[in-house]
């Protein structure tokens, strides 16, 4: 049995195409770019070796640290909110709405298919202060408050980002997690119910552990997309006011393509990749350990 599961020919046939695509079109360009971290210049001016200059510059670059902090904050808060909202929705689909959930699932997925430019316009209008107060400010004024320039201030703009992110992606995470939840055999849940488990206890002790692999994947997915947030920042605030809502991706993009410093831009990209990778490894390791303990089928 073990020899069939380890059939070399099958492994090669199944794995090779993906590995080939991935290596040629992603891995090679990545290393090409990373090679540039030791150079200064751009495609037009040519490249001159710079040793570790880009790395020492990185350490002392306050813009880098500020944008890294913003990226961290963004990824942490958005990941928690997105996955929580998505998980609650998925639980709603599976346990409350059951088979009638198709319509709800479909409608909640709507925002995912909207282009960023449309979503950004919508939220600009919702949180607008002029030419006239948008619905949110109108509501504030109705209760006697003062209109707020939501996108003109870094703190309030951050929350607009969060609301927009959750709105746009919770339907997506719900569907992702739903696919994991429906695969939990009903008999297991039923038998737990009979044993007296109910509501929250059921969720905590049965459902979360059983859907853990997919839940952890969703977290990886969320970290990945929020840490690399780019389009929506450009569309909503363009990183402003000042640099206050500039994530590392935008800073990297500007350094490379606006300031034409490919070497330093690649160094920023490397930093971004390393940080995101470290976070992922932590999540990944914990998920692997769990499965290994439970499944016992490793090696």
């Amino acid at each position, binding site marked *: 049995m073990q020899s069939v599961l380890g059939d070399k020919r099958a492994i090669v046939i199944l794995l090779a195409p993906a590995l080939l695509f991935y290596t040629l079109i992603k891995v090679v360009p990545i290393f090409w770019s990373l090679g540039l971290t030791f150079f200064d210049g751009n495609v037009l*001016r040519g490249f001159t070796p710079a040793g570790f200059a880009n790395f020492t510059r990185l350490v002392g670059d306050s813009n880098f640290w500020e944008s890294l902090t913003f990226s961290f904050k963004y990824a942490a808060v958005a990941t928690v909110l997105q996955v929580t909202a998505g998980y609650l929705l998925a639980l709603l689909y599976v346990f409350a709405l059951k088979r009638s959930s198709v319509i709800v699932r479909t409608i909640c997925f709507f925002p995912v298919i909207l282009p960023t430019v449309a979503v950004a316009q919508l939220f600009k209008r919702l949180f607008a*202060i002029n030419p006239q107060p948008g619905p949110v400010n109108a509501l504030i004024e109705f209760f006697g408050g003062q209109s707020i320039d939501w996108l003109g201030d870094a703190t309030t703009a951050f929350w607009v980002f969060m609301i927009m992110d959750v709105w746009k992606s919770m339907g997506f995470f719900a569907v992702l997690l739903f696919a994991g939840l429906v695969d939990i055999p009903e008999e297991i849940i039923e038998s737990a119910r009979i044993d007296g488990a109910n509501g929250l206890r059921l969720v905590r002790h049965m459902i979360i552990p059983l859907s853990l692999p997919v839940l952890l994947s969703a977290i990886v997915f969320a970290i990945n997309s929020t840490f690399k947030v780019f389009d929506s920042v450009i569309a909503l605030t363009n990183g402003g006011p000042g640099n206050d809502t500039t994530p590392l991706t935008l800073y990297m993009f500007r350094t490379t393509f606006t300031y034409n410093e490919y070497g330093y831009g690649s160094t920023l990209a490397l930093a971004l990749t390393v940080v995101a990778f470290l976070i992922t490894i932590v999540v990944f390791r914990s998920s692997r350990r769990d499965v290994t303990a439970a499944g016992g089928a490793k090696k």
Partner: protein
Amino acid sequence: MPRSSRLMRRRFAPAVAGAAALALIATACGPADGGGSDPTGGDSADGGATEFSFLTITENPQIGEELTRLSEGACADANAALPLSIESIAQAEVNNRVPLLASQEALPVMFISPTTESKVGGDMYESGALLDLETTFDELGIMDNVLPAAAETVKTIYGSMVSIPFQYNVEGFWYNKDLFEANGIEVPTTWEDFKAAAATLDTAGVQPLTAAGTQGWTITRYLSTYLARSQGVDALQNVVDGNASFSDPEYLTAIEEVSSLGEAGYFGEGVTSRDIDTVTSQFFAGNVGMMYNGSWTLSSVYDEAQNPLGPDSFGFFPFPEVEGGSGSISDYPANTGTVTALSADLYNDKVGDWLVCIAENYGSSLMENQGAISGFVQNTEVETPELVSEIVTQMESATGAVIWFEAPFGARFGDAAGTNAGPLLDGGITPEDYAAVLEEAIAADG
């Protein structure tokens, strides 16, 4: 699906995925050496272009449309010898793509070039990719088809004639004549009058000014023009040369003056997050007294859908004079749009024929068909609306060009000045800090 796969087969005929992927390794390992095929229309046997390829920006269809019209009419001969072919990229991609194309020796004959890099000293300019248009136009004998002020503007901004003046814009204040009349305000010619006019409107409950924090230029132009009025048109050049700094008292005054307009609430609430469409719609709805903008706004003035009040309600006046300043009110803030450059490598006689035809016909054709002003002389009489003629007259009387705030500096400066402009008006950043941010950016740009 069957339809798409049929289409695919046609496009994909020569290549097989695996082979392409393998070949990718080969090229990926070594640096590019310029041996690839050239799809952009260059390299005929005698060198130079085989088609009049033009890479424009998607956001500006004007030039492409007008050239297409010329290729079917006045320039049909030039087009027969060297057919026009237009491709486009997004404005935001220019900075990234055009240098990349240049490094691959794949530039088209005519292309939009990144502003900062096209200046003397910039990478595009120094690479020798850009044709010196002054020499070429002189050789072709078409320099007298270019408005002298437009040529001067190009040379002032870029240090050399690198851009064809397909556009020529002057900037100043658009104002609402009805609101001015109702409040007994005369068109201001000095900064003090201007502030008084704003105060009068404010007292009357009218928002005096509007600008867009998301388009920093609508605010930073106040700074550059104020400086040109108070310190002369060389104000910014002096900073570049290291003879002045934004923290100098006379420069800081300009920043403080602009900041104080914001502090007084003249721009209304939410200026930082306001976009340019909101600005123009506020203005044309008659809710705002004045708006700094360019002569390209004319097309909106004469567009009934955008301007329900009609063209008679609006006027244009130059940026007011600063008392005791060394600049003059007849120095106009001007620009010639995005840089439209020619490839030095691909230039040949056929391209020259196109240039001659463009120089002779573009000005009148653009005015007649799109009602817009270019940097070319109008060789045939075109009937123009009143406000247009008025602005053209002002353009012709311009004595000097005021360059925009970001123009003489690098890309970091542009970002710093633009993204902090809104906060400068709403109190998010002090004038001193703004000056410091600018100085930092200048240092970082090197």
